[in-house]
């Protein structure tokens, strides 16, 4: 492999400014929505007494999980010693920071009392998985920041490998912690599973790599830098493996649930008769989010097409959001079973599927979080040397002739 030169993107084109303007507008709309919800209370959201985590949580958890997965490309280089991936590592780390920043912004602004975030930062109940996650999030920021520093500063470059190991361990813990937030909720039939932690780890691989590959292709196309097929093909093949792994874990998760009689109701709700949740599961998560991307990535004739690969990445992201929607909101929409083995309905919403319609402010808050992640990455690429000048096959591929 030849010497890799990293350069900031120029960031003066009208396209760059338009991109920043769109992201900035979305971020402002998101922040404005958060302010509106703070002023008027949660009553202006679609959230209810039964569905207390709504569309902002879907975006937030997706971004946090994807942040962990975006770092995976860097980890393959530093932890598993694959030199091919080392030029890709700085962007991987920047994306991890950006996505986590966007996700945490949404999460904090959607607290019932976002003004008290300082309380969450100064009081800890270590029996709570939520409290662990506060440390895991800040730890991830710190570990990735150190990792970036060791990659970009020649004087400390000898520490890149241990810093990469540290970031890898923290990212695994972070996704385990995020999955465990749901896994420990034994009161909810759809969450109560130890499989959620490993499933979230695999999901992070898929979401993170889809975002990484999409950003990489867009960055190189918009900056007219060469990006060879070797990099694209390796990453898209890896993405296909991760998509298949998610499908496998999802199958195991549902089959395991179906083994327990007490989960039959909620499984029937998600898989068969849950309306929007069933549609999102089969159409959004499985077909559009998994099977179609697999076809696009592997089918002879189209698998080499950059457009097809970019489309597949977009579908994986949409599938991931669908999966989060089904998991987070579908899991709450299914009523708590107070009397197992019986159907129940009452004058106070027991035994009925709870309705949830995302309101505009909370949707804008979620989109604002994605925009904030985009701004962090876009500005990061402009001010620091995250992107190699060239990832042409002759530069990136050690086997190139």
């Amino acid at each position, binding site marked *: 492999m030849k010497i890799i030169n990293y350069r900031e993107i120029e960031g003066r084109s009208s396209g760059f400014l338009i991109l920043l303007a769109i992201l900035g507008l979305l971020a402002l709309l998101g922040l404005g929505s958060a302010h509106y919800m*703070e002023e008027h*209370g*949660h*009553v202006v959201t679609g*959230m*209810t*007494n*039964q569905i*207390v*985590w709504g569309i902002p949580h879907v975006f937030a958890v997706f971004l946090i999980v994807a942040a962990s997965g975006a770092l995976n490309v860097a980890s393959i280089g530093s932890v598993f010693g694959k030199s091919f991936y080392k030029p890709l590592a700085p962007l991987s780390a920047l994306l991890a920071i950006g996505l986590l920043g966007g996700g945490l912004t949404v999460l904090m602004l959607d*607290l*019932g*009392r976002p003004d*008290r*975030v300082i*309380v*969450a930062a100064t*009081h*800890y*109940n270590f*029996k*709570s*998985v*939520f*409290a662990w*996650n*506060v440390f895991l999030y800040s730890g991830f920021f710190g570990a990735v920041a150190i990792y970036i520093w060791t990659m970009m500063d020649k004087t400390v470059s000898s520490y890149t490998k241990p810093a990469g190991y540290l970031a890898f361990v923290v990212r695994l813990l972070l996704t385990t912690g995020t999955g465990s*937030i749901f896994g*420990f*909720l*034994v*009161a*909810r039939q759809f*969450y109560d599973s130890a499989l959620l932690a490993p499933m979230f780890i695999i999901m992070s691989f898929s979401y993170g790599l889809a975002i990484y590959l999409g950003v990489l292709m867009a960055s190189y196309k918009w900056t007219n830098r060469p990006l060879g097929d070797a990099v694209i093909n390796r990453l898209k093949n890896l993405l296909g493996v991760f998509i298949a792994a998610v499908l496998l874990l999802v199958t195991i998760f549902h089959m395991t649930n179906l083994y327990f*009689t*007490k989960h039959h109701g909620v499984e029937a709700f998600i898989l068969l008769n849950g309306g929007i949740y069933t549609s999102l599961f089969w159409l959004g998560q499985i077909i559009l989010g998994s099977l179609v991307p697999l076809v696009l990535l592997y089918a002879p004739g189209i698998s080499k097409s950059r457009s097809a690969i970019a489309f597949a990445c977009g579908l994986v992201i949409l599938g991931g959001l669908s999966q989060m929607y089904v998991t987070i909101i579908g899991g*709450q929409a299914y009523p*708590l079973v*107070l*009397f*197992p*083995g*019986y*159907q*129940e*309905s*009452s*004058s*106070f919403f*027991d*035994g009925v599927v709870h309705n949830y319609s995302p309101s505009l402010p909370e949707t804008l808050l979620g989109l604002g979080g994605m925009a904030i992640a985009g701004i962090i990455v876009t500005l990061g690429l402009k001010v620091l040397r995250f992107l190699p000048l060239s990832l042409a096959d002759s530069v990136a591929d050690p086997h190139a002739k």
Partner: protein
Amino acid sequence: MNQSRRDFLRALPAITAGAAIAPSAAFAATAEPGSETKHRWAMVVDVRKCIGCQACTVSCIMENAVPENSFRTIVSTYEVHDDTRTGTYMLPRLCNHCANPPCIPVCPVGATFQRKDGVVVVDGDRCVGCAYCVQACPYDARFINHDTGKADKCTFCAHRVDAGLLPACVETCVGGARIFGDIDDPDSAVRHLIDENKLKVLKPEMGTQPHVFYLGLDERFQGRVEGQGTLWQPSKHGA
């Protein structure tokens, strides 16, 4: 004044130490209200006496300024179906003030805690409104208060109980279906009812050890999994 500057300086460490200790002592006194008592509050709900009038629901809303469409206590009127029959039952519900409450360990900031008298309460100054406790409660007894943005739930009307009064729902119950008292007091009505009757709790399989007990509760409401001999038998239940 005879006190010299030297005397004052000698006394300064004691003064500052006292000043440092005083607030924490005061905090300790207020942090766990009910800690000075030896009570363990509990409630027995005699469902045979409940007429479903919702007087308890309304009085709770009035007493605790519960926002619209939210409830700290309710009387659910259930239609329960099995394969062939349908029955209607009324079930007053509220926070169970469990001995092993699943809402407390999940709170990331320790805002939810249990007083020494067993009442599970939320420290409103500390709650950040993350709603994790709402998710963790197997009884659907919590909600996010739309007005305050904080977790909200039944407190057994702790402010009234501390003042020697009964919870609002108990005081207003038309049929006298709600009986409140100290489970540790051998002379209390609650203790007598527990000793003399076979009381039931909701979802005992969750291991939460609820302290809201039900008298006359249909066997099906005990919450066992299907297939353990608790199937509804209409003839047995007067249908």
